[in-house]
């Protein structure tokens, strides 16, 4: 049940994104259904939770690292989960009417549900790491939701700011949580919650505290990180109502409350949390008075109320914690309804500017009444839920918890802030609903649709009922939540409306009267003033934030790049190789590396001669690569052949076969590419070439290259002349036949023991081939390479001169005899590939070699007959072959699941076929078939994609010429 509760929103999110973008209503129904389901699930779990039991759902994920997928629900998590689900349901109903059909509404609901899932996951996490994951998810999805109207620059900036601030905080928090895990020795929440003394007495406590508070305070928009919240108001109003009143910003509060039993009570906690909360409470309320944007006012008021909750949590007394939990719920109800009301006004009038709005009571009396009740609750008027928790707050503020200045000023600040709250609440109501009738509004205001108002009605009703009869309605739920946080320390508290004439009531009265008075004196100033509070207007958090960002990511980054970076490749390569060389040499020299003594006796003269040729080829290729590309390519092939012979000589037949085949394909590939490179003609008489700096540069490169070469030689010689240590090789040699059913150990390793690596490797090959294909689709050759090659021009000129020949005849007759042979070679090569493939498990060969061999067969046909000739006769679908190969390989791997074995377990069997005889038929051969198909497809795709360029360019030219001709005739 717990699992369903956490996963249902994500499933719904996936479903919602599949709905076509113009179908908003089904998406809304789906979201409503999911939210209702979550609410029902939470309700069904209540009896268990209320009995004090903690529900757990465990799945081992990475138990070695202490990371398990643990969901855990106690009373507090239940309260938050139901809050998330209930407000989510109401907001869905509201959003159904709020969202305009011109927006991609299903995307909105999909993100909305994903956010709901992340939030539910956050409150239900029973593991600190899991909690951090969901925490980050809420940050990311809120970024997407705030930026939902991405065409709007404000929305983009607001979203980015929110993500930067909360994301940075989240990272700090993650480190903090890891430290807690380190201190306690477990990430399990139950264990963490029962080891409060260990955490508080640990030397790392202050570090942990600061890191976690950075996370919580940024998320809950506490001073000095509060500035992102007002900018997040660029989001659609349902998002503000959900994220910025009830859920996202409460995540910080949730974390503080969750960790309250283990972290609170120390001086550091009191000072940091208290100072942040108190300044937020006061500044938020003060700023709220001077906002002209309705949502801006509500945003600052939210900041202030979050500050209030933070102050309560800072006090460290159980009663204050009760008040904090209570106020969390109350604030969610009245603030969500106010946001929705503000959204209705915006929706029906087209503006949120309070200087333009006035006298709306006449046009929308119902909405006005609802908003007034909710605002009264926000101001803390008696008989409403806001009043109750505010009274509790006052009572706690008066209590002395610590003997210091912060504790002494708390009651005064609290009263002042409540006074401001009364002022801005009054201001909100008065300027929007009263006064003269509005003029020149973008739209004629009227009441919203019936069901758009329903969620507000419900929430306001909740405010009233909870405010009048608290102990009958919210009482038991609150008690369950409080008990799960405080446990044994649960204090006796009373939810009564009337506590008699006492100091908190007096403070409330002062705040009410003072607030009204303040409003009356400021009324005329506010009606016309510019946005933002006096004195603080210039000191905008946003601007500071922007400036820091610009400095960090632009100025400093640029100056570092200017000084330390280069965009040129050559210096980068030099530094890279030089650093690698130095790192290698220093390690070897300091660790006492002694090169082995050279032994000349065991040298086979033939082998030495072959390598002499190989070295000449290598040096020659290096020398010729600039001016004689073809020669360099031939010499490169020579070096490759020597490598291949070395493999044959030294007992590696598989490598030799593969190397030889790859060598052929590589050579063809580079030959195909040569045509598109610019001509480079050596000019030995150019005196300007060999200047002194050029010589020095080359000398330096030569020195690095020589050192690299000598280093590699010494290291490899020393390694090779040492005794072989016992490693895992014998394991494979012993079991290749017994367990893999093949005698070619290399092939068995590839397709069986390390089949997963091979799967990854062919996937890489697949990606490379697709990338090559995609790059070449948009290939634009340089204009000087476009013209027909010289040989073809000569041949065509010859045809033109002889009247009995048609143009192109010579080209068709070119290499006539070889091309006939090449055509005949096709079945032979196919046979060879099949041979290599089938013997692969027991003898040298295998899927790789067979695939490349087959692709050589295809490319020979291209060379013999030309692209068009081949494609008219053969069906060449390399993309399909690749896809089939990947599917076969993966399916073979998955197949072993059917028999209850791990992924890619192989089964071996010999099968006798008529004529051919006994062949090994391990299930690995199917896997190898996948490898074959994919290698074949990838190689052919790469080669023919490049070969097609020569056909495409003349075709494009012909089209251009035809167009030009058509223009002339016209």
């Amino acid at each position, binding site marked *: 049940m717990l699992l369903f509760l956490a996963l249902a929103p994500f499933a719904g999110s996936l479903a919602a994104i599949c709905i076509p973008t113009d179908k908003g209503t089904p998406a809304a129904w789906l979201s409503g259904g999911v939210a209702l389901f979550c609410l029902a699930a939470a309700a069904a779990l209540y009896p268990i939770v209320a009995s004090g039991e903690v529900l757990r759902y465990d799945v081992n994920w990475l138990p070695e690292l202490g990371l398990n997928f643990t969901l855990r629900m106690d009373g507090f998590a239940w309260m938050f989960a139901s809050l998330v689900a209930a407000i989510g349901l109401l907001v869905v109903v509201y959003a159904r009417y709020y969202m305009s059909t011109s927006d991609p509404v299903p995307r909105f609901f999909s993100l909305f549900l994903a956010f709901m899932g992340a939030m539910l996951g956050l409150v239900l996490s029973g593991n600190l790491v899991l909690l951090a994951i969901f925490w980050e998810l809420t940050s990311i999805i809120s970024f997407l939701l705030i930026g939902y109207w991405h065409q709007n620059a404000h929305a983009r900036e607001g979203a980015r700011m929110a993500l930067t601030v909360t994301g940075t905080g989240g990272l700090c928090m993650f480190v903090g949580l890891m430290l807690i895990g380190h201190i306690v020795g477990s990430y399990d929440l139950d264990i963490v919650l029962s080891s409060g003394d260990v955490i508080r007495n640990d030397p790392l406590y202050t570090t942990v505290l600061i890191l976690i508070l950075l996370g919580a305070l940024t998320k809950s928009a506490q001073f000095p990180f509060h500035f992102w919240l007002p900018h997040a108001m660029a989001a659609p109003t349902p998002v503000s109502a959900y994220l910025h009143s009830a859920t996202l910003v409460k995540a910080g509060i949730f974390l503080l409350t969750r960790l309250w039993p283990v972290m609170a009570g120390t001086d550091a906690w009191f000072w940091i949390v208290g100072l942040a909360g108190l300044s937020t409470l006061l500044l938020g309320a003060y700023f709220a008075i001077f906002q002209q944007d309705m949502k801006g006012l509500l945003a600052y008021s939210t900041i202030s109320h979050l500050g209030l909750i933070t102050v309560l949590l800072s006090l460290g007394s159980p009663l204050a914690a009760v008040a904090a939990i209570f106020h969390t719920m109350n604030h969610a109800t009245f603030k969500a309804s106010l946001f929705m009301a503000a959204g209705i006004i915006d929706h029906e009038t087209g503006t949120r500017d309070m200087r333009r709005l006035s006298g709306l009571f006449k046009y929308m009396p119902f909405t006005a009444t609802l908003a007034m009740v909710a605002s009264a609750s926000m101001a803390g008027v008696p008989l409403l839920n806001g009043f109750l928790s505010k009274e509790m707050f006052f009572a706690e503020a008066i209590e002395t918890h610590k003997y210091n200045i912060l504790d002494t000023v708390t009651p005064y600040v609290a009263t002042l802030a409540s006074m401001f709250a009364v002022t801005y609440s009054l201001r909100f109501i008065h300027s929007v609903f009263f006064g003269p009738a509005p003029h020149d509004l973008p739209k004629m205001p009227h009441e919203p649709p019936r069901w758009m108002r329903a969620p507000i009605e419900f929430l306001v009703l909740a405010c009233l009922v909870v405010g009048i009869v608290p102990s009958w309605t919210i009482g038991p739920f609150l008690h369950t939540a409080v008990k799960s946080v405080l446990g044994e320390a649960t204090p006796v508290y009373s939810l009564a409306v009337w506590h008699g004439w006492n100091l908190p009531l007096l403070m409330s009265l002062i705040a009410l009267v003072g607030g009204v008075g303040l409003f009356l004196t400021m009324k005329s100033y506010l009606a016309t003033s510019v946005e933002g509070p006096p004195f603080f207007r210039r000191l905008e958090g946003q601007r500071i934030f922007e400036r820091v960002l610009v400095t960090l990511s632009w100025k400093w980054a640029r100056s570092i790049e200017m000084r330390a970076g280069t965009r040129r490749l050559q210096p980068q390569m030099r530094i890279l190789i030089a650093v690698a060389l130095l790192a290698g040499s220093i390690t070897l020299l300091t660790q006492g590396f002694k090169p082995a003594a050279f032994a000349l006796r065991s040298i086979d003269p033939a082998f030495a001669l072959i390598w002499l040729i190989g070295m000449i080829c290598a040096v020659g290729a290096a020398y010729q690569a600039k001016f004689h590309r073809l020669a360099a390519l031939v010499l490169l092939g020579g070096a490759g052949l020597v490598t291949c012979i070395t493999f044959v000589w030294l007992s590696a037949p598989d490598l030799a076969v593969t190397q030889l085949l790859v060598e052929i394909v590589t050579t063809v590939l580079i030959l195909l590419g040569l045509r598109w490179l610019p001509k480079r003609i050596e000019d030995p008489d150019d005196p300007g070439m060999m200047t002194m700096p050029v010589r020095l540069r080359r000398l330096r490169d030569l020195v690095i290259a020589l050192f690299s070469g000598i280093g590699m030689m010494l290291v490899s010689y020393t390694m090779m002349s040492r005794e072989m240590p016992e490693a895992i090789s014998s394991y494979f040699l012993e079991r290749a*036949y017994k367990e893999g059913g093949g005698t070619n150990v290399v092939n068995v390793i590839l397709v069986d023991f390390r089949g997963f690596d091979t799967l990854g490797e062919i996937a890489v090959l697949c990606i490379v081939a697709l990338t090559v294909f995609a790059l070449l689709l948009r290939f634009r050759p340089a204009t000087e390479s476009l013209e027909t090659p010289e040989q073809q021009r000569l041949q065509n000129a010859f045809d033109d001169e002889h009247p009995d020949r048609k143009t192109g005849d010579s080209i068709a007759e070119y290499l006539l005899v070889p091309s006939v042979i090449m055509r005949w070679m096709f079945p032979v090569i196919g046979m060879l590939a099949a041979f290599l493939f089938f013997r692969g498990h027991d003898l040298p060969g295998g899927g790789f070699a067979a695939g490349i061999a087959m692709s050589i067969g295809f490319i020979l046909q291209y060379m013999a007959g030309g692209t068009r000739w081949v494609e008219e006769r053969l069906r060449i679908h390399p993309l399909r072959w690749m896809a089939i190969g990947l599917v076969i390989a993966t399916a073979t791997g998955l197949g072993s699941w059917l028999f209850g074995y791990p992924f890619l377990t192989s089964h071996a069997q010999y099968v006798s076929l008529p004529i051919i005889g006994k062949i090994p038929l391990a299930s690995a051969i199917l896997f190898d078939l996948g490898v074959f198909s994919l290698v074949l497809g990838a190689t052919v795709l790469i080669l023919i994609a490049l070969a097609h360029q020569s056909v495409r360019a003349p075709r494009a030219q012909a089209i251009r010429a035809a167009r030009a001709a058509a223009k002339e005739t016209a």
Partner: protein
Amino acid sequence: MELVLSAGIGVLTASGVWLLFRPRTYQVIIGLSLLSYAVNLFIFGMGRLRVNAPPLLEPGGTGGLLTHTDPIPQALVLTAIVIGFAMTALFLVVLLASRGFTGTDHVDGRE
């Protein structure tokens, strides 16, 4: 044997590294190919050099390092060869595209 092969690895490395520092894309692609031969041979050499001891078992039998050469470096190099081919192909196409877009075959896309 070991001395010859390691000298060969050294020369291949030196030629490859020299070419990596050159300004033309074609030089770099040849250099990378030479370097990948060197690296493949180096990895292969880590299994020690054996003549006439391929890692092929008798049907039904088992093997050991006394009678057979080490199969692991061979398996590693086999995949390295194929991946090396893919890398060469990709690099070749990138250099052709770069030449098409920028009009030059300099590694920085400008002279």
